[in-house]
């Protein structure tokens, strides 16, 4: 009987411990809609949660000294919820964050007219709701990037820390942590399951690793242990991490051939964006701030080794054959401007 109970508990635990579900997002859909910048509220929310986690640690430890990495785990736990992370459910529900879609009707329209809407409703990419688009520091991204940042970022951080302890030098340890981190994206959370590998997700994971690394960094830690317990010396600022690579209309996803056949039809409804001044201006701004990233480098390496197809095959220009709105298909339209 005991073994049966144990097996039951184990099954429930495994089912509920996955760090993030493969949520998809569509930044093209929200392109025509202005969005209020959410940097300040996201920073305020994250700092509020970190301070709450530190208050818990300081209250509970009662004279016992908690190691910095224990505190990091408590911070990570504060954002966690099986599959969806708390920070993402907050970003989707709170009126403090401006997002598209924002209402029930828009949400339904989003599901029926996004770039994934050309797949059957029973398709795995449509099992879960698509993440809405928000904007921070001039960058547009799906709320799922916040989940990736705080959940997968914590996993990357642990791998990176383990490798560093084994003496693997700085950049190499980062690259290897990212490479190991790409495994779920290339399998259960992405390529194998849904046929979609999001480069933007990988970038958010990597930036999350940087955030967690910085909390106990030997040279400049954000967390310090003082007479009144652990405190946050340097508040979280999303501007240090968010970059154009978080936007899936700029840093496009990589698709399996089978998935691309379906997605390309959905993307073609956005061909008109190639003539849209707002969309083009955003792209120009992105191009100016598009610095090379270690995560990007790892993906390019996988492409060079033939492990992944070239992301250049999946751009809007490629889908539209460079012909602008002439190739726009009469499929459902994106969010209209307010």
């Amino acid at each position, binding site marked *: 009987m005991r073994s049966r109970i144990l097996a*039951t508990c184990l099954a429930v635990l495994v089912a509920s411990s996955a760090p993030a579900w493969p949520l998809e997002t569509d930044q093209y859909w929200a392109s025509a809609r202005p969005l209020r910048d959410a940097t300040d509220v996201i920073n305020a929310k994250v700092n509020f949660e970190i301070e709450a986690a530190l208050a818990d640690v300081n209250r509970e430890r009662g004279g016992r000294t908690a190691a910095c990495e224990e505190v990091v785990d408590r911070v990570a736990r504060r954002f966690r919820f099986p599959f969806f992370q708390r920070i993402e459910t907050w970003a*989707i529900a709170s009126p403090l964050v401006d997002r598209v879609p924002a209402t029930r009707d828009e949400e339904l329209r989003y599901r029926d007219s996004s770039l994934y809407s050309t797949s059957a409703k029973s398709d795995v990419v449509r099992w879960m709701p698509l993440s*809405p688009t928000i904007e921070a520091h001039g960058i547009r991204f799906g709320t799922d990037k916040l989940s990736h940042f705080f959940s997968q970022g914590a996993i990357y951080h642990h791998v990176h820390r383990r490798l560093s302890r084994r003496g693997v030098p700085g950049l190499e340890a980062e690259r290897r942590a990212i490479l190991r981190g790409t495994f779920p994206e290339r399998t259960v959370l992405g390529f194998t399951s849904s046929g979609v590998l999001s480069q933007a997700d990988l970038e958010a994971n990597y930036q999350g690793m940087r955030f967690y690394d910085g909390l106990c960094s030997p040279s400049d830690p954000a967390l310090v242990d003082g007479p009144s317990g652990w405190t946050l010396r340097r508040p979280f600022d999303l501007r240090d991490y968010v970059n154009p690579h978080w936007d899936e209309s700029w840093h496009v996803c990589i698709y399996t051939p089978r998935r691309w056949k379906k997605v390309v039809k959905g993307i073609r409804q956005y061909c008109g964006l190639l003539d849209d001044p707002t969309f083009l201006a955003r792209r120009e701004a992105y191009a100016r701030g598009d610095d090379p990233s270690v995560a990007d480098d790892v993906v390019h390496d996988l492409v060079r080794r033939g492990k992944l197809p070239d992301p250049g095959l999946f751009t809007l220009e490629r889908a539209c054959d460079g012909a602008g709105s002439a190739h726009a298909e009469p499929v459902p339209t994106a969010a209209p401007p307010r």
Partner: protein
Amino acid sequence: MARRMLMGLAIASAFWAAAVAGDGREPNGEALARDRVRSEASLEKEYVLGTWRLRASWPLQAAGAIGAILGRRPSSWDCATVCEFRGFQLQTEAGSGGVQLTAGWASLVGETDRSGRWLKRVHVGYAVRGALMRTGGNSTLDPKAQTFAGIEGTVAATRTSISIGVYRRASHRPSSDPWIVAAGVGWGF
């Protein structure tokens, strides 16, 4: 009382922000955001969300359940789209093989119907509930009418839920194993 004080604090913050803006100075976005986030976290309201599920299970066989989650969430959230619900769940279930009453903790991400009163769609979630079960009717147990007490765990994803429970027979029957493992799969939460 505390809630009124917090409401007062939130209103005072809004006046302060308006006054700052009225001076022609740039309002301090970071400070304002901090106040708003704190105010959001402190001003909560209670809610009751109706839940349902239809499932095939053993030993209850074909069963239907209805229940409610009692929880708290920030009062500014309208949960018109995807939302997180957490709280105490009470559920009653009737099947062709018996009935059960469960009570425990539930946590899920889902969507409500247009009224906001019923859970329409569960995306992911879990529940751990204490359960009291009385079998009968088409039950395959021998004897059919037995009473069990136990714990049921439910994991749900994309509207489908799987539940597994471990129950101990409440009535005394020395000749057989007092434990049973119940399981079910169905629609809803």
